[in-house]
């Protein structure tokens, strides 16, 4: 019985908590909270120092310069005479995105080709690809961009005045190719094509069911294409029937007019700011509560709610704190956000309504051949799509550099597919191309995708090197802006927001594709 007594006494005595300095549960949180406070304190301290220092220099951070004059004119872009600094930054952002998107496409194509050549049986192709990869990836991309600029401007032929109406003109001022642009009827056309979704869904359902029942070829794919084609062709001529949407969307007028004109834009405009704030608050708290409910559900067992760990509680508290912080932002820190959402939402619908206006409805798309101006200076006319030498140097530098990495990724991905897979495919009687399409590439793609996403991120970030060749991307125009007005901190936050948004978008896309490719396994 004595034994039982000791156990009992331990059971009784252990009810008291261990002292704080050796309670792992407490210490863990003390350490975390201390570090959190230090980090927040450091941010607060540095931030207040910066704001004080800037105020002393009459440079209190503000975003008012966005509506101020641009002061500078971008060398190229969607608008070379922007009306405000905000517009100027927007032009820079569009240029960045253009370069990034074109760079991603071109470097993927080139990289895949080089990667395949690297795997080729042909000695020469193999060596050439290897040379390409090893040379380009070991030289800094900035040096390459400079090199390409000097090389291009030193070797390309002069542009002759009066040359016109060719499909392709290459000169030291860049390259010009035919331009295809959307015309007035474009949006109606898109809306018309969107109508086709209904028959497409029906057709797909029908053909899928038929194949499930009777077997044989699944015609869902061809049928989708055919229906799309029909709607596109009919819509090309009949797109103006969609212009009634203009009245629904509203008009692109001033705020007061919009409310009077009605439509979605008007309705949007008449939302009071406090209502928008309330809606946003409800939305974030809804999200937080939804998260907590879903989380708790995932912890619910037939035997009742599972015991939650510290980490579990942290997640829930974090959700509520985040929602509370956002509420603070909506109501106190940045009340203008709500009116900005109202205005830009209204702007968007108004803009859309304008695109569907009654007087529109001509050809959706149009094209023009490049021309060269006849004046004193030989310059490309506005008709063609022109790639200036500056942009070309950046693009070529980025594409070649990135392609050399992509080639290695592609090669590695294909080599990573085990040899057994090829053999198994052959043993099943698949042809070489079938094996490649149905067995090797899907698996290789799975290996390739994550590092490829990283390269896309890199190319987007490296567009910022445009500053080296004077191309007006968001970093270059941003730098000009803060050189003029001293609002470096504000411009910096705009850069950060823009690039983080780009990065986030790319990772979302890559993760989505990755999720689709994921092999189901335990």
């Amino acid at each position, binding site marked *: 019985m004595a034994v039982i007594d000791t156990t009992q006494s331990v059971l009784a005595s252990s009810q008291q908590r261990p002292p704080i300095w050796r309670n792992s549960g407490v210490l863990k949180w003390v350490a975390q909270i201390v570090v959190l406070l230090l980090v927040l304190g450091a941010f607060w301290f540095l931030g207040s120092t910066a704001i004080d220092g800037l105020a002393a220099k009459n440079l209190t951070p503000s975003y008012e310069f966005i509506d101020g004059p641009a002061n*500078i004119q971008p060398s190229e872009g969607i608008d070379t005479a922007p009306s405000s600094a905000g517009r100027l930054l927007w032009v820079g952002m569009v240029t960045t995105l253009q370069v990034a998107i074109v760079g991603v496409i071109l470097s993927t194509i080139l990289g895949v080709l080089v990667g395949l050549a690297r795997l080729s049986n042909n000695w020469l192709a193999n060596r050439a690809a290897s040379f390409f990869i090893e040379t380009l990836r070991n030289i800094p991309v900035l040096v390459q961009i400079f090199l390409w600029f000097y090389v291009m401007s030193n070797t390309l032929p002069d*542009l002759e005045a009066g040359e016109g109406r060719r499909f392709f003109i290459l000169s030291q*001022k860049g390259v010009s190719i035919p331009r295809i642009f959307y015309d007035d009827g474009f949006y109606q056309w898109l809306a018309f094509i969107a109508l086709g979704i209904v028959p497409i869904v029906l057709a797909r359902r029908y053909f899928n069911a038929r194949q499930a029942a009777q077997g044989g070829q699944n015609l869902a794919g061809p049928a989708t294409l055919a229906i799309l084609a029909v709607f596109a062709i009919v819509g090309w001529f009949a797109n103006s029937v969609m212009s009634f949407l203009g009245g629904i969307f509203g008009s692109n007028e001033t705020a007061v007019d919009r409310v009077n004109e009605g439509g979605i834009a008007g309705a949007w405009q008449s939302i009071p700011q406090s209502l928008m704030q309330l809606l946003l608050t409800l939305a974030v708290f809804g999200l937080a509560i939804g998260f907590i409910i879903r989380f708790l559900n995932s912890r619910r067992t037939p035997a009742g709610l599972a015991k939650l760990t510290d980490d579990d509680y942290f997640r829930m508290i974090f959700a509520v704190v985040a929602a509370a912080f956002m509420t603070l932002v909506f109501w106190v820190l940045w009340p203008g956000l709500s009116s900005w959402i109202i205005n830009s939402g209204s702007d968007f619908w108004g803009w859309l309504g304008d695109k569907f206006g009654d007087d529109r409805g001509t050809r959706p798309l149009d094209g023009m051949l490049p021309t060269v*101006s006849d004046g*004193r*200076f030989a310059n490309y006319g506005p008709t063609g799509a022109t790639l200036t*030498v*500056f942009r070309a140097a950046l693009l070529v530098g980025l594409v070649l550099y990135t392609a050399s990495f992509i080639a290695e990724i592609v090669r590695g991905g294909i080599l990573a597919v085990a040899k057994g897979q090829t053999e198994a495919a052959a043993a099943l009687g698949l042809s070489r191309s079938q094996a490649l399409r149905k067995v090797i590439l899907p698996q290789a793609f799975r290996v390739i995708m994550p590092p490829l996403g990283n390269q896309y991120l890199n190319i987007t970030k490296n567009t910022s090197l445009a500053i080296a060749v004077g191309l007006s991307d968001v970093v270059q125009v941003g730098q000009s802006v803060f*050189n003029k007005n001293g609002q470096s901190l504000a411009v910096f936050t705009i850069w950060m927001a823009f690039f983080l948004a780009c990065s986030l978008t790319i990772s979302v896309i890559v993760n989505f594709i990755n999720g689709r490719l994921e092999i189901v396994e335990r």
Partner: protein
Amino acid sequence: MKNTKLFRLLAVLFAVTLFAAACGSSETADDSASGDDGAATDDSGSDDSGSDDSGSDDSGSDDSGSDDSGSDDSDTETVDVAQGSILAQVQDRGTLRCGVSGAAVAFSFTQADGSVTGIDADYCRAVAAAVLGDADAVEFIALTAAERFDAINTGNVDVLMRNSTWTQSRDTAVGMDFGPTTYFDGQQLMARASDGFSATSDVSEIDSAVVCTNAGTTTETNISELADTLGIGITLNTFEDFNIVTDGFIAGTCDVITTDGSALVGRKAEQQPDDQEWVIFPPTPISKEPLGPVYAQNDSQWADVVNWTVYATVILADEYGVGSADVDDALANGAPEVIRILGGEGEIQTAMGLSADAFYNVISQVGNYQEIFDRNLNPVGLSRDGSANASWLEGGLMYAPPAR
């Protein structure tokens, strides 16, 4: 028992550590107070009181690499500009920190042997010769267009000789003072004769041209304002580096380039390809670009030193023709004003806080204005004759107040 003894020993040692830290600091403070070391400015941190760590020039930050990330803050330093005149700081330090461009032809550029030459570099040397008696006691701090004025405000450089234009806003709002102009420049444009340009062409003829210039300067604003006024459309490309501008012009990527006339003349003299005929226009520059020294505001003692260094070279060049070769002779039997300037009497210079022979050193080690001009600007094809940089005696603008 043995253990407790050990603890006591430890306690004593620990106390010693604390004292060492404390004592060290007070001695440091004494050092700087005694003034042989001028702890006021950043580079003088020979006393390693961490709060005035290394200067900006000696990559003082790299210590973080040697220990760990925790000590990143050791890169910090104090800049205490408020203490005394820059003149005293420069004399304490023994070197002049002079902001230059480092890549401006004829103004300041780095030679293959590591030396810096150009008219701006020579004026840095002149100030050093006046203040320190040694024209070579200069540290040239190369600055980009964007960072140059901050360097003045933070005291990173004592004087800025970086072909900087004297403008109202810079003089007032940005918080600097400008010295006498050492070179009267003006923005001009350069185009090709094959495009139908001549030296007398008008700016309005560049309609629809691709115009290239360098970023972060007044030239960028000038040309776009002018284009607006004239109602012509141009495409404006701006670059950090003027080499790209010139290269684009040679290749034809740029139809017209624009910057200060002096730079255009220099580039034209050196880089014009055989088959292109470059012309600089319009005859009257589109802007006034008086270039000269820049220094921090509200330090009149330092301002006097820099200004009179410039005036001394101007007076002796244009009015008396005394150069580095005949300076000794002039000191012995020159005009009274020359002797005064060269320190024959002495009070004028010592009243400024300089040694009596300050300007003698300038002339003998660097030369007079004519010599500086000939040495740096003649080789790139620029001449004083008939320009604003000629002496007032010959109808130019180079004029110095009397020295008496």
